[in-house]
């Protein structure tokens, strides 16, 4: 497959009007962030003793982890099952996962009151805590993601080392080192790939275990002992839609041709997974008879219906249609809906469903909280753009091969 497309750094202008807006949003977020560290969490957030967790946990951490699931689902598909056909999307998905988890870690760092003790879980273990398990898995997985990304970095610099001036003498030794590293990595990479999939399975589900201990403080529409399973299934089902979503946005913003051939095939796998998720979600609702809560009209019931209808049922129907799978626009809409659905599910689980017995005012995120969350998302997009413009991540047609050869190679493979 690499014979006719290969990951290449994208050669375009970095700054566009959209990018400038993102930079402004990021700066605004960073300003609020400074305030959070100088004046404390209470000064910039609406968190309280009644609502200890807000959108920083619900969106930055929980939704962040879920939407970075494209990394492990494509790794499982491309590397574990050896479906070479999908190799083109593995790298961009890996990059998103790497950046996504980096921002999850930063999100945790700013949310915890004693950020300078963030290393404590490494040496102070509490095996019965779901949060401990999530924390440790995320830390190890983040390291694994960086290791998985290293070959891309090696590829970028091997043969292209050109330090200037006094550092010039370093070019050769560094290059030698990189070649060595690359060789070692390609021999051992599968260890990390499998570890990445295992770690993801573990913490994606444990993230669901987190709220179980809140018991009756969580609205019964969401509170169920199978939360870990629902979290895992929804993470798996959002993996490919997220890859499609990004790939189409990247194609649009860099003026590349969308890789529909890979994306629509990826899309065919979404409906079955989403179907399993829906089955468990509905089954759980009927077994626990929580549908009675849908008859009352309130924030929780409305959010639940939106999540299920627009985030699961409608996109499920769309992904079953050939016409949708073959149209970039419809594929984009269907994928966006799944992404939106899982995003909303995490927000619902951690924020909307949380219903403390004693409350004085309902939690509504403050401008500061929203600014920081939006700022982080902007930074993530900016970093993604910077990396794909400087490292070989996104696959593009390789000019070295003529169309005729391409066809021949493809034909013989199938």
């Amino acid at each position, binding site marked *: 497959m690499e014979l006719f497309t290969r990951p290449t750094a994208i050669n375009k202008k970095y700054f566009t009007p959209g990018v400038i807006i993102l930079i402004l949003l990021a700066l605004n977020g960073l300003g609020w962030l400074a305030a959070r560290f100088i004046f*404390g*969490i209470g000064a910039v957030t609406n968190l309280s*003793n009644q609502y200890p967790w807000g959108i920083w946990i619900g969106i930055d951490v929980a939704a962040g982890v879920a939407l970075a699931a494209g990394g492990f689902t494509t790794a499982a598909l491309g590397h574990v099952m050896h479906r070479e056909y999908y190799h083109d999307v593995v790298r961009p998905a890996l990059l998103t996962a790497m950046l996504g988890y980096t921002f999850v870690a930063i999100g945790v760092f700013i949310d915890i*009151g004693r950020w300078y003790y963030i290393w404590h879980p490494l040496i102070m273990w509490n095996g019965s805590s779901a949060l401990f398990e999530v924390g440790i898995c995320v830390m190890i997985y983040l390291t694994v993601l960086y290791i998985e990304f290293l070959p891309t970095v090696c590829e970028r610099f091997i043969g292209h080392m050109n330090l200037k001036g006094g550092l010039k003498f370093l070019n050769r030794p560094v290059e030698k080192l990189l070649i060595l590293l690359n060789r070692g990595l390609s021999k051992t990479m*599968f260890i990390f790939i499998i570890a990445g999939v*295992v770690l993801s399975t573990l913490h994606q589900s444990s993230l669901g275990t987190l709220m179980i201990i809140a018991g*009756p403080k969580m609205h019964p529409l969401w509170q169920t002992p199978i939360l870990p399973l629902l979290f895992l299934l929804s993470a798996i089902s959002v993996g490919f839609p997220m890859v499609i979503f990004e790939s189409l946005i990247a194609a649009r913003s860099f003026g590349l041709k969308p890789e529909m051939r890979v994306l629509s095939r990826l899309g065919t796998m979404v409906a079955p997974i989403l179907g399993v998720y829906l089955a468990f979600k509905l089954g759980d609702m009927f077994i626990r008879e929580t549908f009675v809560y849908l008859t009352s009209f309130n924030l929780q019931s409305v959010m639940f219906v939106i999540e299920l209808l627009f985030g699961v049922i409608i996109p499920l129907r769309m992904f079953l249609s050939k016409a949708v799978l073959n149209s970039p626009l419809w594929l984009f809409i269907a994928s966006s809906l799944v992404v939106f659905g899982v995003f909303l599910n995490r927000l619902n689980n951690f924020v909307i469903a949380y219903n403390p017995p004693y409350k004085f005012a309902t939690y509504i995120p403050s401008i500061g909280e929203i600014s920081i969350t939006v700022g982080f998302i902007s930074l993530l997009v900016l970093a993604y753009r910077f990396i794909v413009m400087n490292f070989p991540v996104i696959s593009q047609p390789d000019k070295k091969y003529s169309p005729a050869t391409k066809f021949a190679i493809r034909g013989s493979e199938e």
Partner: protein
Amino acid sequence: MAKQNRRDFLKTAAVAGTAISGLSIKPAKAAPKNILSEDRMGVLVDTTVCIGCRNCEWACKNAHNMPTQPQDKYSDRSVFKEMRRPDENAFTVVNEYPNPQNSEIPTDVKVQCMHCDHPACVSACIVGAFSKHESGAVTWDTTRCIGCRYCMVACPFQVPAFQFDKALNPQIKKCDFCYERTKVGKLPACVEICPVEALTYGSRIDLIRIARDRIRRNPEKYVNHIFGEFEVGGTSWLYLANQDFSKLQFPKLGEKPAPGVSESIQHGIFAYFVPPVSLYALLGGLMWITKRKNESEE
């Protein structure tokens, strides 16, 4: 990746397996400090006796070196107009409710940490900053806490409070059952000051006996329910009342310990690390097979 031969694969896979099991976290053995002692202490709060003088609020602050108003200010009953909750500045508060048996004498309810027998906070805390002591007290350790506030999410009584206004070293604040005082044989400050003996300090087993006795001797006065005897698996603090506890804004809770479900899920997933390691092996095998299939097709 692609260039790797099969022998290498097996060799490294073996190494990887060992590496992963090396990472394994032993299922936390019940640390000695979290043992549930037979003679753990508790307090029986008789809400029919409490007069709402709020001296306990003052004594508690005083005993914990927290800023407090002069003691006589606490006789101000206007605070009862609104429900209050313990927070980072007060480990205990008294709330007032109408009394169906005698509208002249309202019912006053002191609120603080319940010192659960199976505390959700202990189970949840990411770094094990909470511990259940032999004395029954559940305390928090400032040297471990990272300020994640998961304990607050977990606590079924919504007790732990956090110093949100502090940029540096914010603390989790809650009643510590006067751990330092009881260690040296003193009574909890609130129990000691109570002028009408609404609070009885003693071993939990004795307290339940006393409470049952009071209900038996005065069945028309008390509802037949000792709150805390069975709630969330039992608590060190126990309550008697003359009306349904839900009227006094006690949360409605089952008898299963709060951490039960999540702990069994956790331990199920991590049972001696068998499930993760088998998943690893399974994926490794799958990878090897699909790779071989691909190679033979080539």
